[in-house]
Structures are given as C-alpha cells and as structure tokens.
C-alpha cells in the first residue's frame, strides 16, 4: 500500500513538473492570468470589506467573520483548482479518443485525468491565501477544538470537491460535455463565497443537501466560530463520504459507456 502510494506521489510529481514547465515557458501569459486572479480576489475582498464597513454586519456575522467565510471558500476553491486543473482538458481527450492511451497505462485512469496537470498559477496564490486565512481566523479567537474541527471539515470540503470533479469527468464521458459542467459547478460553489445563511429556502436547502456548498464552504468556517453542533459535523462527514462513494460509482459506470470514438 505504502509502495503504491509512493509510486503515485512520484508520478504526480513528474506530471506536475511537466505541467509547470509548459506554463513557465509562457511567462507573459502566466503573469496575465496571475494578475487577473489576484485582481479578482482583491476586488471582491474590498467590496465585502467596504460593504460591511457601511452596514456593520451581514446576516448576523461581523466583518471579520464574513471575510473568513470568503477566505475559506477561496482556500477550498483554489486548492481544488490547483490539484484538478486537468479536468478542463478532458473533453478533447474524450472527443479524439486519446483517452485510450490513458486507459492502457498501468496507472489509475482516474488519477491521470484528475491530477495530471497541476496549475502553478493557483499554487502561487495558495501561500498568501493561507496566511490571510490564519490572520483572519485568529482574529476570531478560536479554541483548539474549533481549529481542529475547522481543519477536519476543510478536508471534508476537499473530499466533496474531489467527488464533484470525478462526477464531472464521468459526465464528460457519458455526454461529451465538460466545459459548462465545470463552470456550473464553479458558479454553484461560488454561492459559498458567503455563508449559506443569506440564502432563502428552497435555495438554502438545495445548497446544503443537494449541492452541499454549505457543508463544503460554510461549515468549516462556522466550526471555528463555534457555531456547529456535533450532529451537524457528523452529518457533514457522512455527506462527504457518500458523495465520494457515489462519484466513484458514477465514474465506473461512465467507463463502461466510453466508446473510444475517433481513435
């Protein structure tokens, strides 16, 4: 098991180095995308900051709490983008039949198409994001248990995000559509930039149970603020595991539908 894990780490490292090399060879494009991502983050950050400075609170949360929700969303979103950028390149692979070449290799096909192209642009933005999250997180004066629960729920959030990426890949095999599926997933999760408490029913229920943006993005931040219940936390982990289980089932089903067209 450990040997297998080491092998996959080594493969991931090699694929990531290759992916980074491609991006680094186009420094101008890298700078433009990096500036764009940072600019977008700063604008939304300033918007929230000045909005809450004017209103004092939002849905009962203070400025720092709302910004912490926003930072937690970004953390999950950016790390997911960093690890799973290859998902965006899956459609051409399916359409021209190049996926055959992945299937015949002695590694997991899912691993290859999911993690085959880590994004260096997102990687650059992760350290400052973590620092900001720590700064705003500590301003909330969390307890040790709150921090531990935050980290665990963060991992659970990544688990659900990974499950969604797998489901998108499976969807791509079945329908040949991935671009909009990815963007719709991103638009849905973007609703988690702010605590799901601001949404009204039935949207709030939809974002909690169907597309569990609330569990992915809002719950970790709530845990650090001491606003979660043991039942809520338990339910979150059950949802995370269930989503991963269903996504893997869907992936296996999709593989049986792959027609190897055009190859």
């Amino acid at each position, binding site marked *: 098991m450990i040997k297998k894990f080491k092998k996959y780490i080594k493969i991931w490292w090699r694929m990531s180095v290759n992916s980074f090399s491609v991006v680094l060879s*186009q420094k*101008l*494009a890298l700078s*433009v*995308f990096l*500036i*764009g*991502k940072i*600019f*977008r983050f700063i*604008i*939304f950050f*300033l*918007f929230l900051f*000045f*909005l809450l400075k*004017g*209103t004092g609170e*939002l*849905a009962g949360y203070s400025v720092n709490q709302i910004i912490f929700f926003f930072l937690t969303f970004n953390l999950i979103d950016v790390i997911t983008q960093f690890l799973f950028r290859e998902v965006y390149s899956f459609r051409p692979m399916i359409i021209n039949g190049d996926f055959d070449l992945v299937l015949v290799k002695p590694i997991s096909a899912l691993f290859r198409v999911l993690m085959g192209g880590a994004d260096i642009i997102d990687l650059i933005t992760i350290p400052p994001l973590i620092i900001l999250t720590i700064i705003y997180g500590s301003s909330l004066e969390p307890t040790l248990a709150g921090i531990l629960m935050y980290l665990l729920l963060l991992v659970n959030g990544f688990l659900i995000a990974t499950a969604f990426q797998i489901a998108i890949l499976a969807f791509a095999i079945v329908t040949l*559509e991935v671009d*909009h*599926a990815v*963007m*719709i997933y991103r*638009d*849905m999760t*973007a*609703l988690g*930039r*702010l605590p799901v408490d*601001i*949404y*009204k029913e039935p*949207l709030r229920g939809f974002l909690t149970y169907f597309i569990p943006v609330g569990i992915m993005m809002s719950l970790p931040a709530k845990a650090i603020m001491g606003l979660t219940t043991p039942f809520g936390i338990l339910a979150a982990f059950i949802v995370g595991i269930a989503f991963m289980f269903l996504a893997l089932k869907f992936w296996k089903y999709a593989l049986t539908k792959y027609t190897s067209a055009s190859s």
Partner: protein
Amino acid sequence: MRKYFQIFKISFEEEFAYRLNFILWRFRNVLQILLTYFLWSTVYANPATQAFGYDRTKILTYVFGVMIVRAIVLSARAMDVGNDVATGDLSNYLIKPINYFKYWFTRDIASKILNLSFAVFEFTLLFFILRPPFYFQTNITVFLAFLLCIILAVLLYFLILFLLSSVPFWAPELGWGSHFLVSVVIVESLSGALFPINILPRIFQSIILATPFPYLIYFPIQVYLGNVSGWALLGVILVAVSWVVVLWMVLNIVWQKGLKVYQAFGR
C-alpha cells in the same frame, strides 16, 4: 446591407445549433445573479434600510437591471476575433468583400437579441419567484436617456473586445489571457455588474470612474434609477461618447498596425 442581414440570420441560427451550450450559459447567468440578489436582499432585509444612497427597492432593481443590461451589453461574439488573428483564420475574411468590423458587429447584434430574449424570460421567472420590490421608471425622457446609454455601452464593449482581440497580432499566446484579464476579470469587477461602484470609498470610485468600464453597466442602470439627472446625465453621456470616439480612433490605429505585422500563422 443584405449580406449583413444574411450574416445576422446565419449567426442567429448558429446560436441554436449549440442549444445545450446556450442554455447552460444562460443557466450560469441566473446562478451568478442569485449571489448578488441574496446578498443585497440580506443587507436590505429591513425595508426601511437606507445605505450607500439606495433603499431596498432601488438596490434590488439594480440587481435585476444588471441581468437585462448584461444580456444586451456583455453578450458578444467579437471575443472570437482574437482566435481568428492567432490561428490565421483572419485571412479568410480579409479576402472577402465584407467589412470585418461590420461582420462581427452584426454577429454581436444576433447574439444580443437572443440573449436578451432569454434574459427577459429569466427576469420574469425570477421576478415571480423572488417577488422583489421594483422601481419602474415612468419618465419617458429618463428612459430614452437610459436607452442611449445602452447603445453607447454596446459600442464601447464592442471596441474594447476588438482592441483586446488585437493583442494576438503581437502576442498570439495572449489571446485568451488578455480576454480573461479584461473581459472576465476587469469588466466583471469594475463595470458595476458585481456591485454598484458608489458603495466604494471616494478614492476608489474616482479611479474606477476614470476608466470606460462603469459606462457598460453601472451608469446605464444609474440613469434608469434616476440617480443621474440634469447636467450630470449630460456629462455621463458626453464622457461615454468621448470614450467611444477615443477607443474607435485607437482601434483604427492598432488594427492597421496589427494588419501590417500579421503573418497568418498556421495558414
């Protein structure tokens, strides 16, 4: 004129060829509006709240206004021009007896009409589901000024897109990068699509208002809401016209220079 009408017809039909893509694109627009709507609805949960110069009715009208104005102004096909330049496909058009600018403007109009019709449907649907208070502008002069601002915004966005699409003449690898930076990030952030510019402190407002971006969405809706009137309205229209003229002149220079360095890579 007839050939452009044919281009319009073909473009319109082409949009229907990829129905699923189009419907998913519209669905994404609805999702994006939900965040903004619920955010402002929560801020102005108390109907008596007055903040940043808006009350609940006006801010929610702003959010719904964004939906319509976006569909008219920001729906455009001209963002594909950069790809034509980068791949050398531009050559196909240069040898045809059509004006390349008019060709893309016609395609833009087809896209806008289709997007607007869907936006009206989404607007109606969300309006009946969410039942927000809405500010109906009854002053015909103000409404005409709003329509004029929309026309100027359409021209402005067309010119911005064409200028961006000129970047691949010199840096083909930057085709999508420059669009991402300007039309996805900067336009979304500074046009007023995400939030009304006047909630920011004065210094930020002054910087943003010195760019052409607020004339795309923010000012047309401000005019509709009656927040800009009299000499200020005239000023807004004059500045928007100036931006159109300046960008048109810059585009002509840039495009001519671009054509001189164009080497039809990939052809």
